[in-house]
């Protein structure tokens, strides 16, 4: 299968690979997917408690090039966004940006799930109710 140039770029030069200190209260971690399905994404955000802005985002992904690119792109988009804006990131935005083919749409869904899971982890750490995830 041919990958788009943007997928290849994110795969070859992934942005923001790494690990944030999950013991910190202002760090939210989302771990989604399953090894049997061939995709596991871990996406972390660090939030400025005063402004509610995401100051840092890191990921590690076990998956195909599209899964790696989707999570890499997600971290790029998350940095500097407010939590509210981050929640507006839709998987179809990722599909469009990376020109993912239909068989790879699930990678973008997983990235959106990872964003929401990270936000909810941050919220629960800070005694806020979780956002409903579809």
């Amino acid at each position: 299968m041919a990958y788009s140039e943007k997928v290849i770029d994110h795969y070859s030069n992934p942005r923001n690979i790494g690990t944030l200190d999950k013991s910190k209260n202002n760090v939210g971690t989302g771990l989604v997917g399953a090894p049997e399905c061939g995709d596991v994404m871990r996406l972390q955000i660090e939030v400025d408690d005063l402004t509610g802005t995401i100051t840092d985002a890191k990921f590690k992904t076990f998956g195909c090039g599209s899964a790696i690119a989707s999570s890499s792109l997600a971290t790029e988009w998350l940095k500097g966004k407010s939590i509210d804006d981050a929640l507006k990131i839709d998987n179809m935005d990722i599909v469009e940006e990376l020109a993912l083919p239909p068989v790879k749409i699930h990678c973008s869904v997983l990235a959106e799930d990872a964003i929401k899971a990270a936000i909810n982890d941050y919220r629960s750490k800070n005694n806020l109710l979780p956002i409903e995830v579809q």
Partner: protein
Amino acid sequence: MLKLPIYLDNNATTPVDPRVLQEMLPYFTDVFGNAASRNHPFGWKAEEAVDYAREQVAKLIGAGEKEIIFTSGATESNNLAIKGVYEMYAEKGNHIITLTTEHKAVLDTCKHLEKTGAEVTYLEVQSDGMVNLAQLEAAMRPTTILVSVMFANNEIGVIQPMKEIAAIVHKHGALFHSDATQAVGKVNTDVNEFGIDLMSLTAHKMYGPKGIGALYVRRKNPRVKVTAQIDGGGHERGMRSGTLNVPGIVGFGKACELARLEMDQDAARLSVLRNRLENSLLELEESYLNGNKEHRLPHCTNISFKYVEGEGLMMGVKDIAVSSGSACTSASLEPSYVLKALGLDDDLAHSSLRFGLSRFTTEQEIDFAINQTKEAVTKLRDMSPLWEMFKEGIDLKSIEWAEH
């Protein structure tokens, strides 16, 4: 200078040997006759070429010329063997035994026959890919007419104990068919030595052209018959009608001749290169060889790299053409059924690579493949959350994963 990408998917298909191509070329233009035309020199010359090629194919597998039925390839040969025996021996029984690790051309043919009344036993293999002979013996019934076991597996290269299987099959009065697609021309596949009654082969896995193959059908001890699956002009002694693919047959014959003469030296050289590749890659932590290490083809290896996803890995080894056990791009998310049959967990099946070397593979190419694979595995593990958890001593099986 290395020419990239490097082709290491020779279990899928091989390039045509230039010597084979040279032999074929005149049969497209100058000697274009129909081998069945008995009344002029165009036909005679074509027939002569077919006869010589048939002799070469037969010689390679220790058969007689009259025992070779040319087909379009091993898929057709498997269909003809299994359906043909099932129909021809319907009075004797309706039970067929095969393995879960067979090629789809065998499995799906059996499934097709099940719909028409056949009973099929799909034997599981052991964790190294080898058949369990005691289970085979126990599965034999008075109504068993055919046992179909591949000579060497296309994904892991494991060679089954053919002599022992043949002994069991014949003791119970059944016929023994083998899909020898991967083995012919690579290792000794003498039909008499191994007691094979029907054997499928194809040219394009042994430096011959695509679209030509053969079915070996034993003529004595016992005399085996198959019901034709393609009706028409009665070519190939009535077992496979259709105008003979003369250039293809000539190429197949030449490929068999070369294999007979060069197989041993190719195998010796390639097993050294394969071992070098395999040993280097197994130096990586958490990498595992799939299949029996002793009983297998000399030119291929199949290795799983834990905590790395197969398709991502394929992308990382972009300058080498290999196959993966991952099925991420296909409609189903199921990884290789062959690796699953060995008892591998899905994650290990997903993260496997199959390397197949050829007569044309060089030492420089293998060294390049080693380096690129090692780099890709290391890079992907550095970005894998599973690898990080493994390194922290977390048991991945203790985590509740959300299946999606």
